[in-house]
């Protein structure tokens, strides 16, 4: 089938914090074929129309998590979204909500990378360390099934852009970090739950969530962070009441 070339208007948010006082919008006319993603539309702009437009991308296949942006107000991966679905309407592309803008569509993810992620200790904390010679920590498929979908997170931060709580108060640990907390808590090789519990139990842990659920709706990898938060609300509630039965109370 011969490819028909159509044209779509793409409106991009432009902002350079060093020289602009406020963001503005710039519209480009982009010719496209049926198989072109929104990311390819942006690349066309950068290559052919305006080399100064800044945005992030790498894998072009929903794996690296770097191309997230607000597409007509919805947080999406631009490589995972097609121009044809918006034609003949136009497209408005903005940087992900709730994050500072570095330049145009590129946001500053420092808060997630430096604060949220390390806080949930996203690595296996074994009960006893095991010498290499003792072999690997074994796991059955059933045990893996308990955490596998949480491990599919690509840190794209669409869920943070979707989360009104994070927008209101960025101290909230947030969906992806809590999903990763659960990813390790639910891993049969991990014994670090107690170390992650203090954060989960705090107002900025799972209790910062009011179960809006939009995070799970926008997640491109089916991680379902809202479910992870809920599982940890149950765990945190049990922990809250069971400490009265524990001989040494709050000290685990």
């Amino acid at each position, binding site marked *: 089938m011969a490819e028909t070339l159509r044209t779509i208007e793409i409106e991009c948010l432009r902002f350079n914090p060093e020289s602009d006082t406020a963001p503005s919008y710039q519209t480009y006319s982009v010719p496209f074929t049926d198989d072109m993603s929104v990311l390819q539309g942006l690349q066309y702009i950068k290559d052919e129309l305006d080399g100064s437009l800044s945005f992030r991308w790498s894998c072009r296949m929903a794996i690296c998590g770097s191309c997230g942006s607000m597409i007509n107000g919805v947080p999406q991966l631009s490589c995972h979204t097609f121009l044809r679905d918006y034609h003949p309407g136009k497209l408005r592309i903005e940087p992900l909500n709730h994050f500072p803008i570095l330049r145009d569509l590129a946001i500053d993810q420092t808060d997630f990378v430096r604060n949220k992620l390390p806080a949930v200790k996203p690595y296996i904390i074994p009960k006893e360390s095991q010498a290499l010679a003792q072999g690997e920590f074994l796991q059955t498929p059933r045990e893996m099934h308990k955490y596998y979908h949480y491990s599919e997170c690509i840190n794209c931060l669409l869920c943070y852009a979707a989360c009104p709580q994070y927008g*209101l108060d960025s101290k909230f640990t947030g969906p992806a970090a809590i999903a990763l907390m659960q990813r390790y808590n639910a891993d049969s090789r991990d014994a670090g739950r107690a170390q992650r519990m203090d954060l989960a139990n*705090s107002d900025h842990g799972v209790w910062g969530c009011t179960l809006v659920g939009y995070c799970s709706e926008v997640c491109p990898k089916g991680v379902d962070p809202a479910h992870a938060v809920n599982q940890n609300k149950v765990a*945190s509630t049990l922990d809250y009441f069971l400490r009265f039965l524990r001989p040494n109370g709050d000290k685990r």
Partner: protein
Amino acid sequence: MKRSNAPVFWALFGAGGMLAALIAPMLVFITGVAVPTGRLLPADAMSYERMLTLARNGFGKLALLLVVLLFMFHGGLRMYHSLHHLGFHTGSGAKAVIFGIAVLATIAAAVALLAVG
């Protein structure tokens, strides 16, 4: 890190939500439609005498108290979160008012249930 006291409210909220999902529509239907119109259930199904018997029975008392307590706390947390979503960051003030009302309603229900003997 300070432990949140949210689990107390969340546990009551969760229990209330479960109870509401199970019986609230039926309660509304029985008390609001079926009995008042007198067509689906006899009009005296909820007569004063019958209701008094229910409220004097130990299990009846417990059921009535639980319905009031859990529904109030469930609705309370929903309202508290909704205020927050609408942009009113009222903090502990609204919390005190909302859950104060829930506590008062529960006490009122308990007193009334004891008073009917």
